[in-house]
């Protein structure tokens, strides 16, 4: 039983991290209506930039600020150069554009900063911590706590502040939002900047967990099931979806894996997502219903 | 004698508590042109959508050619000989005029995938037949000049006519026209009215149409049904309806 709880707890902790990454997607989906495949590349870029700076003995806080500035600039540039010209096109077109974007960011980051694996030390120790009958990693706990704090901050931001409410108005009806004076470019820039910041934090946490390397971009492939299950337009959904996917992945790996003779985590979350799509297409907390024939 | 091809009895439809159609009953004779008119939001499009299977009525029933239309899916309605046009033409934008019209015959196609791929005789014969039918319809609606043009490049009025061609090519028994003249100028409307009447005269197609231009409606149709807030407030030949006080009240006395 305690093994089950441990697996579950480990999965939930990983799930918080998935949720953090997923929130970045939700933000951009709400602002620009697109699933930003380049989010993973942005996470990589953030982590790489930070690590490259600290390796050159730039102090932690300064590296953080510089990285943040770069990420925000990048995010705003993307919104301007890529998304605005494609504003009326189909979702698939937008998705393919972000695919192209991810290639640019990946290629660019690695060209400038190299492709070898970098160790990232955030000063968070990784020790076993006993909580009741189960053992968890202190790093996982701290990471989850930080991610969780950020999640709560974002939730408050978007549910309780003017910008957040404006954003929901824009997502519902851009024309009406314009007509009551909401300045869209500012709003979009703000959202993309926040998404860039989220990418930075996620990049740092993930990078510290498993090293900063190319495979960070595949974090985006885990986000899609989270969004499908939780709903593309809800931060709460991203959190719940992240926890579900994290837990399901961990449990499936341990219990289903040996039955089928191998690592099932590549596809299990997707299978779950497809089941959701067939049964509850809008996701648990999503608003937009998918059209049916 | 009276030969109702379409009968609605006590049909009701609600959207999230809002009653779009309330106990609507009327019948349409075979070969007549029946117009559904009424202020915006009166439920006309909803009624049309029910006839076509796009919406499902909550109550009441619809009979077509004596048989109930029960929970019919749009493709099945097409199979039974009910065709329709759309408010904004809804053409297949990447296809030519000819291809759009040919799409209207899709449900009559019997050739299979393999036959298409290998060009087997049944496919060749069918293609020839379909092309002839399409060309005939294009001539009928004076669209021959646009035959190979991609529809997205065409003026709106022509697109609406292509929409009509697409619906007409399969010689439907009942044709539902959703605002066939919306967005047209006077001359285009007259042309469209001419084509609609010609379709009925030439092919015996029964026509139910939604239209806002009262002048057109009165001269074109044999039978007018007036809706207001989902209810029927007038039903009869154009002259009778035009002078009906209830109808005038519904329109606040202002014909378009």
């Amino acid at each position: 039983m305690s093994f089950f709880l441990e697996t579950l707890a480990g999965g939930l902790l990983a799930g918080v991290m998935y949720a953090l990454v997923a929130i970045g997607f939700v933000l951009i989906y709400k602002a620009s209506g697109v699933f930003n495949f380049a989010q993973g590349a942005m996470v990589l870029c953030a982590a790489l930039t930070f690590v490259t700076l600290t390796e050159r003995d730039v102090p932690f806080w300064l590296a953080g600020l510089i990285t943040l500035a770069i990420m925000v600039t990048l995010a705003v540039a993307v919104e301007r150069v890529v998304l605005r010209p494609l504003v009326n096109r189909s979702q698939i077109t937008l998705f393919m554009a972000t695919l192209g974007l991810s290639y640019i960011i990946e290629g660019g980051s690695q060209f400038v900063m190299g492709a070898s694996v970098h160790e990232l030390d955030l000063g968070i120790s990784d020790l076993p911590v006993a909580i009741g009958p189960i053992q968890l990693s202190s790093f996982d706990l701290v990471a989850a706590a930080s991610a969780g704090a950020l999640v709560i901050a974002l939730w408050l931001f978007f549910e309780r502040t003017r910008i957040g409410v404006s954003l929901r108005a824009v997502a519902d009806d851009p024309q009406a939002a314009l007509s009551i004076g909401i300045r869209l470019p500012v709003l979009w820039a703000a959202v993309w900047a926040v998404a860039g910041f989220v990418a930075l934090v996620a990049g740092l946490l993930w990078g510290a967990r498993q090293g900063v390397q190319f495979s960070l971009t595949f974090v985006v492939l885990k986000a899609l099931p989270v969004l499908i299950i939780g709903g593309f337009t809800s931060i709460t959904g991203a959190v719940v979806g992240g926890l579900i996917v994290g837990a399901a992945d961990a449990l499936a790996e341990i219990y289903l894996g040996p039955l089928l003779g191998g690592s099932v985590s590549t596809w299990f979350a997707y299978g779950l997502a497809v089941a959701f799509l067939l049964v509850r297409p809008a996701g648990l907390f999503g608003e937009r219903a998918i059209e049916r024939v | 004698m009276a030969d109702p091809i379409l009968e609605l009895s006590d049909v009701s439809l609600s959207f999230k508590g809002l009653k779009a159609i309330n106990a609507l009953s009327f019948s349409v004779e075979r070969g007549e042109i029946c117009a559904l008119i009424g202020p915006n939001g009166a439920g006309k499009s909803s009624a049309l959508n029910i006839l076509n299977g796009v919406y499902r009525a909550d109550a009441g029933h619809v009979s077509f050619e004596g048989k109930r239309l029960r929970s019919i899916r749009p493709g099945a309605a097409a199979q039974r000989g009910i065709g329709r046009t759309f408010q904004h033409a809804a053409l297949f934008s990447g296809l030519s005029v000819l291809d759009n019209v040919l799409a209207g015959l899709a449900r009559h196609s019997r050739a299979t995938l393999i036959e298409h791929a290998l060009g087997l005789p049944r496919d060749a014969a069918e293609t020839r037949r379909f092309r002839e039918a399409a060309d005939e319809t294009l001539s009928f609606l004076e669209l021959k000049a646009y035959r190979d043009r991609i529809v997205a490049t065409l003026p709106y009025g022509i697109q609406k006519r292509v929409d009509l061609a697409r619906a007409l090519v399969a010689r439907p028994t009942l044709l539902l026209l959703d605002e066939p003249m919306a967005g047209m100028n006077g001359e285009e409307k007259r042309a469209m009215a001419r084509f609609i009447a010609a379709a009925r005269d030439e092919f015996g197609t029964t026509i139910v149409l939604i239209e806002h231009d009262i002048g057109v409606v009165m001269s074109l149709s044999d039978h007018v049904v007036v809706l207001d807030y989902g209810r029927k407030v007038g039903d009869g030949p154009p002259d009778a309806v035009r002078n009906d006080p209830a109808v005038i009240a519904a329109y606040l006395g202002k014909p378009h």
Partner: protein
Amino acid sequence: MPPALAAALAPVRRPVLPALPVRAAGLALLLAVAFVAIPLTATDYWYNAILIPFLIMALAGLGLNLTMGYAGQASLGTGAFMAVGAYATYNLLLRLPELPLPVSLAGGGLIAGAVGLVVGLPSLRIKGFYLIAPTLAAQFLIEWVFNQVGWFSNYASSSAISAPRLVFLGYDLSSPAGRYALTLTSVSVVTVLAWRLVGSQTGRNWRAVRDGETAAAVIGVPVARAKLSAFFVGAAVSGVAGALWAFAYLGTVDARSFDLDRSFQAMFIIIIGGLSSLSGSFIGAAFIVLTPILLTHLSNALLGGSLDGGQISNLQRILFGALIIGFLIKEPNGLAALLGRLRHPAR
């Protein structure tokens, strides 16, 4: 406006130019080059590094184009379908050696098509972008299955699967020229079949579903059948490409060559080459195959080889990404349309 009809509004979009009208003479010239001039002049390097992968990736892109470009059904499963084709053909060649080579190839394709049909079933309920999810699920699952279930690779470790001898009508096709002949013939035959389908009622139904699914359903186009056939044919074509990749190019069946990156590559080919354009798949494939080679030569010439392979591939990623975005913004119908416009500037 009733929601069902809102969906039926034609999308605001620039007109799709008709498929590049390769005039009869131009086509004849192309075929003469392909079937006659090349075999007389090409070197092994050209066969192995350029012509064969070009033809195969063009076919893979063609398969995806049928599903996604013509029928509008998004799919990131091309790699998986190629894998099915490769493994199916391998097992047919291995376990039923009396079947002639073309039959095994075709069989591999048909089996891939059947898998594609199953993968396409969710498309009856899920539309647009979300369709990516089931195809991704299929991509990951199928990759996993071939890695896990040893029967498919005859219980050999992946590096040791060797392709059975390619023999047809007594000719040994395992030389570069022989493999080129096999590839060219297969690709030509499949392309002709695809071309016929696209011009037929099936192709028309596909495009109707793509351009206005609700309207199509209302006027009686068999939407479900159109979607499933698009997946079936697309997967079958990609399956044949996968089999050719394994046997005519790599010389082995390796699941890793059919991963998600392969699916992305196919998608790039059709975006750059031109969606819903048969010739576009070829143009796009030529582009994808030649660019890395050109970049390497360019960097060696201009920068004296100071850029290593990794850096070049990074540059390539940047280039591809920029091109994809550029094409999507400026010329959504890809190089095929661009070239078409060069030939007919009045249009």
